[in-house]
């Protein structure tokens, strides 16, 4: 279960989390399932929060190289402006 969550993207994790909350709020769930859902929800909360902070702010330039591929270079905003 935990492994499956790891591979979820932010969006999927958030959706799953929303679904869990909705399901839990709708009532008719037995307590064992409820506790399992709660624990899964807690892991998803952690995962989503981690995903929010995952990527560093960065800007690069992508240009075609001579051989049909692409080269990624640093981009200096003001140097080129």
């Amino acid at each position, binding site marked *: 279960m935990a492994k499956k969550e790891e591979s979820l993207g932010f*969006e999927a994790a958030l959706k799953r989390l929303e679904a869990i909350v909705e399901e*839990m709020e709708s009532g008719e769930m037995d307590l064992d399932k409820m506790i399992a859902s709660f624990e899964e929800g807690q892991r998803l909360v952690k995962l*989503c929060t981690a995903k929010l*902070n995952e*990527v*560093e*702010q960065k800007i690069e*330039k*992508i240009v075609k190289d001579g051989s049909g591929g692409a080269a990624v270079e640093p981009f200096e905003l003001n140097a080129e402006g």
Partner: protein
Amino acid sequence: MPPLAKTKVYSITEITRLIRQTLEDEVGGVWVEGEISNYKLYTSSGHSYFVLKDAGAQLNAVLFSAARAALPAALRLADGVRVRAFGEITVYEAAGKLQIKVAKIEEAGLGDLMRRFEALKRKLQAEGLFDASRKRPLPRLPRRIGIVTSPTGAVIHDILNVLWRRFPNIQVRLAPVRVQGAGAAEEIAEAVALFNRVCGPESAWPADLLIVGRGGGSLEDLWAFNEEIVARAVAASAIPVISAVGHEVDFSLCDFAADLRAPTPSAAAELAAAPKAEFEAQIAGLDRALRQALRQRAAELRSRLAAARASAALRQPRQITERLAQRVDTLGMRLEHALRRRLQAVRQQAAGTFGRLELLRERRVRQLESRVALDERRLTQACRLRAERCRARALAAERQLGLLNPLAVLERGYSLTRTESGALVRSVGDAAPGRTLVTRVRDGAIRSVVEKAGI
């Protein structure tokens, strides 16, 4: 040539005026089309002067400030621009120059462009390129955004400002392109394709979203974004595209083909990235909801458990035990009752026996009592007899005793003297002078003081 004498000779002014009037009358207002050259704007007067020309001829043109002010701002008047101008053909008499006084002017070919635009739009629409069903939802949290725009100018700055202000954790790759002029459309289309080739989902830098756009400009400036090649590249992009061609009112074909259209590049950035704080609040809210749901469920289950405990189903065994208990109680009561009855019987029996016993006892007591009474009487009689006898003997003894009593002597005239302390005065020595003596006679006592003793 007619002889000079017979012919009217015009002054230059007269003939120029005649030509002007004839032109104005015969030609009047016309539309002409040509290319602007030698464009000059006199800033002091606000009038502009230029030449309209085509391959075979040229015509001077003047655009007075009042007419210029009425022109659309987007209109470019510059050398090389092909225009259509409406105005009156006239002669500037002072210079002897044929000219057109321009009242209206528009870029030539605009009508063609609009016709081409409409035709292309209809064609692509018919192909389903703009269908709403093709539009994909944008990712809620894009972490890698590809941007296709000019590397210079305000647009890239604006986009980055907005993106990073709202959400600092976003990576951006820019594909620098020309956004107007010859070849711009090809560069834009190629950049979109490049992102799809290099930044696909399986790549090391999977782009979540593309922003394709430029800042505002005239319809012709924006024209690259109306080219078929751009519209097709955007429609074909596997990565969702926000189109932001800086025109508030008109839509470009790129806008139609994109998944989402933004009026400006800044607006595109806003549509792309929701504020991070919003996500954080949403996640915190869900976290709270999770806990709340669990708490509520637990409370609900607790109360259901309590209700179940009190329910008929679980009460059944208790009813059974209650019934049993009742039976036990009943049996107990019956037992007690029986016991009590038996006890009573025994007691009654005992009482009967006891009564008889009592009767016997009472009879015996009465026998004994009567005997005792008899004995008593006899005893009393005997006692009384004996008492009489004793009394008689006592009286005799008393009489005898009276004779011996010193006080009885007093009856016969004798007296008895004692000191105050009660000692009997037997001799003279007992009565010292000055001593008080008490003398007892038959009917009382006399108190006296000894004057002299031993007379």
